[in-house]
């Protein structure tokens, strides 16, 4: 017995070892066995409806047909600070991925994006970009590392059905913050749902506090030369927090949930639990794809701005970037994909029509309000091209689309915006969860904390 068992065990152990070495393959291949350039691109947010994925896959097929030497693999993706960092550090980011405007400069500075200047220049429309918008993906010496793909302005999202139930006219959204407050109170009183809600988690609390602060005339940072100073403790921010405090604790119009992030607030809004909230003008796409919102419920108004030259509408956007580890062939292929999927449609009629048609055929949103990444005329032209395919309730967004032109647009804070937002999350959460929160003390503390973040660089 003994004599049999030992060799058998040794064989088993050897097999285990052999199995382990077999498993330890190399990294992702840059070419397929057929010699095609392999790239991985981000597709849609996890949990999007099947029809949206079908439309995306159709676009991949169109791209591969037009570029027979490129093989595209898709990967579901939703940018959140923590998951992005993990993918960045773990080296698992796809060849093409997207990041918010706020992170472009920081990632370029840290050498974490591929330099795609030459490939971008070959596209032939680099000089058409809005210079300020393109700058979010450029290095200090003018090299291009990321391309803006879309820009949004924050708007006031509102539920038309709740407006009606509360006895408000859904075609007359609030135009001042005092009206927002009284409407919210009326909605909460008559429908029992939150009249107004605000995001507070995963940096969105800071993002929205900054938006409200801008709208009330404040700014979170000031730049002199190379020096960035935290100005979190400003009258606009104070007024913003006081408004939230009044709505939450005096009026009781903000519901009971104070821990919302981007996904959960969209979810509750689509489910009819929220009367109004601030969100990007393009959020309808996600509300439809991920949360199945009833289009009749949806309303988008331009964000009220306080009178005065300083008040501004916060705008931001998305950059498409290429993995720094991608080979030169992959970088070229990746730029082609960025052109095909994100940008070409704005400058070429055939691309615009094909994109809109593909989406519309799968009943995916076409025509959500965007802000120009090229010049105004290019966007107007694009909107004309896709007009026959527009299927979003644009009439219910007219307050935004008409009102946005008169607004003073202001970009997100220039330095370490996401880290600053993380600090401000705590401030917003404190005001919304503690009726006795001391706004002055919170702002003074946050100002010091943000300055520390900025000094660390």
């Amino acid at each position, binding site marked *: 017995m003994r004599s049999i068992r030992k060799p058998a065990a040794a064989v088993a152990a050897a097999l285990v*070892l052999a199995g382990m070495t077999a498993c330890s393959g190399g990294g992702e291949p840059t070419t397929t066995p057929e010699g095609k350039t392999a790239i991985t691109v981000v597709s849609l947010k996890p949990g999007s409806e099947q029809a949206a994925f079908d439309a995306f896959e159709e676009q991949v097929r169109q791209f591969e047909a037009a570029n027979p030497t490129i093989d595209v693999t898709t990967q579901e993706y939703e940018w959140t600070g923590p998951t992005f960092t993990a993918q960045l550090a773990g080296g698992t980011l796809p060849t093409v991925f997207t990041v918010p405007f706020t992170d472009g400069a920081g990632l370029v500075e840290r*050498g974490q994006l591929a330099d795609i200047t030459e490939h971008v220049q070959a596209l032939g429309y680099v000089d058409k970009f809005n210079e300020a918008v393109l700058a979010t993906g450029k290095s200090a010496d003018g090299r291009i590392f990321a391309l803006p793909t879309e820009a949004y302005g924050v708007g006031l999202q509102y539920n038309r059905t709740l407006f009606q139930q509360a006895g408000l006219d859904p075609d007359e959204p609030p135009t001042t913050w005092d009206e927002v407050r009284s409407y919210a109170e009326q909605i909460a009183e008559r429908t029992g749902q939150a009249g107004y809600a605000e995001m*507070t988690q995963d*940096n969105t609390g800071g993002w929205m506090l900054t938006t409200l602060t801008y709208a009330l005339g404040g700014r979170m940072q000031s730049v002199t030369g190379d020096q960035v100073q935290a100005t979190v403790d400003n009258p606009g921010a104070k007024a913003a927090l006081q408004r939230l405090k009044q709505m939450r604790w005096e009026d009781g119009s903000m519901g*009971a949930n104070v*821990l919302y992030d981007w996904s959960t607030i969209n979810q509750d809004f689509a489910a009819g639990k929220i009367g109004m909230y601030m969100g990007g003008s393009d959020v309808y796409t996600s509300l439809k794809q991920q949360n199945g919102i009833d289009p009749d419920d949806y309303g988008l108004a331009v964000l009220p701005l306080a009178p005065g030259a300083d008040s501004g509408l916060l705008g931001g956007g998305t950059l498409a970037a290429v993995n720094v580890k991608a080979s030169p062939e992959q970088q070229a292929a990746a730029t082609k994909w960025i052109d095909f999927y994100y940008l070409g449609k704005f400058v070429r009629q055939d691309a615009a029509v094909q994109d809109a048609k593909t989406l519309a055929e799968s009943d995916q949103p076409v025509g959500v309000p965007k802000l120009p990444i090229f010049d105004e005329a290019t966007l107007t032209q694009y909107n004309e091209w896709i007009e026959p395919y527009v299927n979003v309730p644009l009439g219910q967004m007219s307050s935004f689309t008409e009102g946005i032109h008169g607004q003073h647009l202001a970009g997100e804070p220039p330095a370490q915006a996401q880290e600053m937002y*993380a600090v401000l999350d705590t401030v917003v959460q404190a005001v*919304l*969860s*503690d009726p006795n929160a001391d706004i002055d003390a919170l702002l003074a503390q946050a100002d010091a904390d943000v300055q520390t973040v900025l000094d660390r660089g």
Partner: protein
Amino acid sequence: MLTWIRRGGLSTLLFLLPLVVVFGVFSWWPIVRAAVMSVQQTNLVTAPVFVGWENFETVFTDPLLGTAVRNTAFFALIALVFGYPIPLVAAVLMSEVRRWRGLYSAVAYLPVVVPPVVAVLMWKVFYDPRPEGLFNTVLGWVGIAPQSWLQSADTAMGSLVLEATWAAAGGTVIIYLAALVAVPPELYDAAEVDGASIWRKVWHVTLPQLRGVLLVTLILQIIGTSQVFLEPFLFTGGGPANSTITVLLLIYDYAFSSSLGGDYGAATALSLVLAVFLALLSALYFRLTRSWSTS
């Protein structure tokens, strides 16, 4: 050499190798890397820079560390007060019943089978802060006003402990039940002959017989709760206003909260500090309790 092989040296080595390789690759090497990283500044993409004790200084001067330690200690304490005796009481009661014992242990163990993330999502629904939320409805039946649960700094931590206790109790109950079977029945018979009540039997027979297991589960519970992460991460993200940020969540935040590439140096530095602290605590604990131990 040949004798060494014939004596079984080779197969011993072959047997040992997979284990050594697996432990080496998945445990020891990461531990060494973490120790190295704690004195480096790195974003894991560009080359790391040696910074000496700087990461430890960053960690120890971070005002959030105090908050995180206090919160973790508070969590550990209330988890101990509720989470430690409840499984013991449940196990003793269950061992006393004669019928349906299997059913009771299955029910007690059920929460352990539920995947933790699913459990947290489920409890998030229970903790709905509106008056029509599940727990608030139940409280309403007995005339208690609706609670904010996760939405207020005062009640958030308690809510986390409640779910954590529910989720973990089943596992401990099973350990106690197994240990209770090992208590010699003649001890109970003798106590019964002496006219001992059920409480005296528990106090004088059950607990002393279980003390070995109790000592181990206590330190495991302390270590486990010191590393609490899942509940604050999924329920509150450390909020409202940092009231549920724990040491592990702080480590996570160092590593991942900045989308530009995290401070992995500070994260590993704090991880090492926590590991050393828990190792010292365990050593001290076993030294202090050596005289009570059965082994």
